[in-house]
């Protein structure tokens, strides 16, 4: 894991990634108990090409030079399958911008906050996502006020209702 995180920080230093944050189950595991996951999800602002297009090829090429290898939709770095996802909607953009720095084996990495993780899980709306929302809330990781604001700002009221129905 450390090698994967160091590689991501290197890509940010080299400006191939403008900004990134750890999301998904690995980010959630910072706040709640660990659950099985196959990969490390990374949300990122990828630096556009001079043409204005966002291309993953230069990023993947550089990762391979740094020792990673491409395997389907993942890049394997230090044994960890990493999935780099461009921040594809306003909620995820805000989650990356508001990520907090956390310590992993003495390196500082940006991790999406518990409130944003819960909001993203509500937006995704699969059974496992509702379980994540529940775990974050049950562990006391979310701020009621902050999550409430995110639900209102990103029109997640219906998803919240679905979650409440499932877990009450």
């Amino acid at each position, binding site marked *: 894991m450390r090698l994967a995180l160091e590689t991501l920080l290197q890509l940010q230093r080299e400006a191939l990634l403008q900004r990134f944050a750890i999301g998904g189950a690995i980010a959630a595991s910072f706040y709640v108990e*660990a659950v099985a996951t196959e990969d490390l999800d990374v949300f990122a602002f990828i630096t556009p090409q001079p043409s204005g297009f966002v291309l993953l090829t230069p990023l993947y090429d550089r990762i391979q030079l740094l020792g990673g290898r491409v395997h389907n939709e993942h890049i394997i770095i230090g044994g960890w399958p990493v999935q780099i996802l461009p921040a594809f909607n306003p909620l995820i953009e805000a989650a990356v911008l508001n990520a907090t720095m956390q310590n992993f084996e003495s390196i500082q990495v940006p991790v999406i906050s518990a409130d944003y993780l819960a909001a993203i899980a509500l937006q995704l709306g699969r059974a496992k996502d509702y379980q994540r929302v529940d775990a974050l809330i049950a562990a006391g990781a979310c701020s009621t006020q902050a999550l409430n604001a995110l639900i209102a700002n990103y029109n997640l009221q219906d998803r919240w209702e679905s979650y409440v129905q499932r877990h009450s």
Partner: protein
Amino acid sequence: MSNDILNPEEFEAFVARRKLAWREHAIKMTWEEKIAAIERMWERDKSLKIARDAITKARLEKQQLDLARPDKRIDSTD
């Protein structure tokens, strides 16, 4: 202890206490410890997959051997 002297309510309460104790332990783990636990889950899943594949392979081989036996053949007139 035989099953007939197990008190179901005590049993449920014991399991619930153990689950709670595990959850409290799991939440207190450091991030590094949790990531190491996830990596161990991969090892466990890999071992389970190897075991499952071996069972499936053995079952298929047995089926093929059975089909090859004259007394097990569907078209046998015995």
